[in-house]
């Protein structure tokens, strides 16, 4: 059996997002081998009901976007579909620039974002981790955020490439000036 089968079994059993490092450890393989297994699993799942949801450091099995309408009728939980202007701006910065500190977010938005960050953390839409330098937290994309956006990885967002191009063009222009 291929590594993809073990990854699938493990993620099915856990049912919640798993750190890629924990997957590698449970399988007794290196992180790079997990990546190969992930690619194989994604390809195989393609015709069924499940998809592999991937953030920078986690993996999770979820239902396919094509099923979302049907699933919506099956499930009971009320989905809070509103994130507001401030929430959306903060999420955009985290999606395209994350992991990113509060100071960076504040500086881009020109306002204090601590209240909205707390709100997004409580809703599970973002995750925080200690920064390498040790000063405060860095915020990054969480699996539930991708679940709510209906994509299995952030690169699949409809305008991901376009926005990334714009950001690159901006930075190139800035460097040219200095």
């Amino acid at each position: 059996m291929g590594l993809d089968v073990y990854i699938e079994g493990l993620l099915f059993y856990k049912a919640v997002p798993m750190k890629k490092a924990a997957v590698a450890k449970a399988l007794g393989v290196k992180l790079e081998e997990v990546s190969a297994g992930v690619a194989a699993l994604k390809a195989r799942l393609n015709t069924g009901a499940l998809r592999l949801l991937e953030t920078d450091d986690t993996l999770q099995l979820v239902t396919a976007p094509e099923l979302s309408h049907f699933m919506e009728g099956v499930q009971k939980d009320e989905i809070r579909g509103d994130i507001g202007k401030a929430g959306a701006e903060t999420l955009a910065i985290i999606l395209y620039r994350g992991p990113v500190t509060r100071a960076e977010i504040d500086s881009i938005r020109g306002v204090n974002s601590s209240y909205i960050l707390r709100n997004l953390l409580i809703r599970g839409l973002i995750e925080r981790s200690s920064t390498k330098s040790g000063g405060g937290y860095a915020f990054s994309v969480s699996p539930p955020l991708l679940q709510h956006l209906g994509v299995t990885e952030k690169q699949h967002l409809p305008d991901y490439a376009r926005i990334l191009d714009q950001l690159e063009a901006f930075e190139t222009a800035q460097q040219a000036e200095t």
Partner: protein
Amino acid sequence: MSTATNLNFSIKTEVFEGPLELLLELVERRKFLINDISLASVTDEYMQYVSDMQEESLPNTSRFVALAATLLLLKSKSLLPVLELTQDEEESIDNLEERLRLYQIYRDAAKNLMNQFGQTMLYEPLFAPPKEPLFLPDSLCTVEVLHAAIGEVVVQLPKTEEKPKARVRPTISLEEMIDKLQHRIEQQMKTRFSELKQEVTEHKEVIVGFLAILELVKQGNVLVKQISRFDDIEIEVEQTGVPNYH
């Protein structure tokens, strides 16, 4: 009613969380690109909005005032090119354009996110309790460890004033800021704005009055006469020519 007031009408009813959001809205509303010319041209509207905010003692006004200072410098410079700015000031003007461009990219991305959020959900399994009840305590399951853990939780509780709701006066008011700038320009240009200022008492009038003078200088509606080589330059304003903003 002047044109400036009309333009402000719909802006007034909107609530802006931050100064960049307001500024971008003003620029985009006129379908302008972001550059020093467009920023200078929306300065009046920006000042009007902040002036209203201040009058209503809205929270976070100070944020908007800080950016207003940069905008006024930018506008003053565009109208009075001889005005000398410090390197810091030049940078803050350049930075403003850059910050606004970067903010615009994320703001646009945010609009799409808002439309997409919650539209197509990918579901994870519901929680299924184990069939036979387990009991798996670990080394952390002691009163000592949990006491320490709750202590940590209590220490980390956020301060409740995090949510911006207190209505505080901004640390620096628009008037103070304009006073300072006016003083500088007076020094540099040796003009007599103060004479005009004496005629107006309301702070809003000071603000728009100042902007109006800058406009008048630009438009050549002001008679500048040099009385002698070493004298002050006097500015004479025809009262009918001053736009009435209020």
